[in-house]
């Protein structure tokens, strides 16, 4: 098949919708919710209204069944408006993905219905206070008791954790079994023994809610288990292989915003009697930003294409995630530099880009973990 970089008419239309939504509904309120460190629920409601929320749920379960490329197209646009706000639908897709990958027909019907009939979110709980990158070292215990698992333990850094209708929680039936003892359980909001505490004082992405989840003798029905006992770790890893691509998409949005803001400012700001855009020192920075953005976007689309065509993609998702977040961080950094002192002030939007995109280098697997995945891909060939 020949290479074809064109988008379908439908993809162009949904890009247009997401772009307009970001411009009219997200960008104008981003600074306010960043300052308040609050989730903009009215935006979540509007995302639901126009169909941009939980859109990866298959049509058979009341969703739109969007592919990865569509998710990437939408992700770039929403993150252009605010990376923190984009994390809300993105983290919901992160919660949906393990159910998509490992849930039974009955589970999909039951859990997805809650996310399509009204504005609602899902969440994914893997990290714990004592483990992040070493995911198999989790300590949250799941002890079987008849038709239930009794959950005890603490999860942390859980996006949407307090808002979510349900959370996919990874726990161990026996810590000595390491990754072979992991079980994935869907815990519904309001289950006795399940509490969510909002974490305050984040550097960026302050409009997305990040939570610590505490489970104290929390009884979860066995029918909420995804796959078999012991399959949880693989479900988590397969999920992240997919959802790293939307993280890359978010980075593209931040990088594009940084380039646009920097370009506008460079054309307006005068120094030595002319716009600073006339100086090569500024031009080189803008050129570097576009080089990063274009290559990251092309690669992220490629990773999405591998995913949509069912080909091995774990390494590509890792490359896209790490690379896009790094070029975006650098773009935000240079956008501040071009703005000079004004760039350091909250009155201008560029300092927030840097604070927000820092997280893209950390969550859903740090960029160091991405490099391990990439290296393993090289060495195992």
């Amino acid at each position, binding site marked *: 098949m020949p290479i074809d970089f064109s988008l379908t*008419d*439908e993809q*162009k*239309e*949904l890009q*247009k*919708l997401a772009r*307009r*939504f970001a411009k009219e509904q997200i960008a104008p309120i981003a600074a306010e919710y960043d300052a308040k460190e609050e989730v903009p629920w009215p935006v979540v409601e509007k995302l639901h*209204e*126009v*169909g*941009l929320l939980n*859109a990866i749920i298959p049509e058979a379960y009341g969703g*739109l069944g*969007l592919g990865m490329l569509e998710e990437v197209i939408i992700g770039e646009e929403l993150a252009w408006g605010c990376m923190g706000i984009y994390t809300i639908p993105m983290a919901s897709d992160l919660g949906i993905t393990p159910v998509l990958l490992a849930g039974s027909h009955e589970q999909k019907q039951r859990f997805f219905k809650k996310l399509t009939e009204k504005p609602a979110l899902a969440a994914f709980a893997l990290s714990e206070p004592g483990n992040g990158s070493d995911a198999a070292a989790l300590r949250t215990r799941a002890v079987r008791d008849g038709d239930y698992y009794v959950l005890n333990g603490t999860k942390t850094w859980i996006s949407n954790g307090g808002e979510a209708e349900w959370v996919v929680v990874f726990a161990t039936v026996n810590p000595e079994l390491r990754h072979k003892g992991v079980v994935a359980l869907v815990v519904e909001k309001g289950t006795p023994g399940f509490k969510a505490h909002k974490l305050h004082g984040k550097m960026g992405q302050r409009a997305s809610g990040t939570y610590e989840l505490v489970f104290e003798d929390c009884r979860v029905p066995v029918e909420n288990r995804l796959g078999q006992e012991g399959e949880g770790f693989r479900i988590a890893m397969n999920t992240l292989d997919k959802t790293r691509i939307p993280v890359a998409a978010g980075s593209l949005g931040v990088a594009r915003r940084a380039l646009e803001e920097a370009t506008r400012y460079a054309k307006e700001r005068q120094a030595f009697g002319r716009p600073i855009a006339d100086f090569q020192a500024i031009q080189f920075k803008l050129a570097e930003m576009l080089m990063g953005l274009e290559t990251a976007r092309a690669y992220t689309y490629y990773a999405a294409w591998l995913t949509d065509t069912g080909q091995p993609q774990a390494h590509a998702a890792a490359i896209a995630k790490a690379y896009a977040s790094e070029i975006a961080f650098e773009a935000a950094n240079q956008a501040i530099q071009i703005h000079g002192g004004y760039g350091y002030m909250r009155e201008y939007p560029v300092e927030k880009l840097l604070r927000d995109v820092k997280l893209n280098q950390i969550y859903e697997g740090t960029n160091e973990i991405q490099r391990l995945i990439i290296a393993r891909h090289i060495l195992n060939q």
Partner: protein
Amino acid sequence: MKFLAVIRQVPDGESRLKIEGGRVDLSGATLILDQMDEWAVEEVIRLQEKHGGESVVVALGPERAEEALRTALAMGIDRAVHLVAEGYLDPITQAEALAEVIRAEAPTLVFTGGQQADWDSQALGPALAEALGWPVVSWTTQIELESETQAKALHDLDEGAERVRVALPAVFTSQQGLNEPRYPTLPGIMKAKRKELKKLPLSAASKAEVLEQTIQERTRLNKLIDGKDPVSAAHELVRLLHEEAKVI
């Protein structure tokens, strides 16, 4: 009942326009459904939601105008008709061609934008009414259907507003305040692909020909008033604003 919107595709207000060989070059511009036409589309959808029947959107324009028609379909219009014509056609010729399609559709009413963001002629609505022999209500901010043959509308005048009762079918043109248009939803976009979009090639001769286009540029006068004597400076400023700028 059948409600029909006539729309145009125009450059986004933020697009940078260039002149190439005496013509506006739209190759780098983002083209969108005209905002005032979007109000017309929204109103047609609302009328259909309230009174039932069918909604149709019609456009006259080049191939690319199909995108604007798809946007209207994604917002909720049932089907589209596209009169395909490249190049410039004056509003009277456009209205005559559109009137043929509209007559065949026999709608309860027609809604279109009060003016459009590119040629800005404000002529298409009235010209359509003329070609159809129907009444026209321009700059409409409210419309209420009293029966299949009668509507009540509020429309802007230079000095205020006027409430009118009008026999249908009629042509209405939109004004700011008519409604807040909805977003085309994602399910709407996906459904729009499967909706009917009929293409009719059009070959009509324009009654007017565009010879050359230029972009309006105003250079600043850069007048500075010496402020050493504040009273005379204020008098001078008032004089300039009154006599030269003609703003007070």
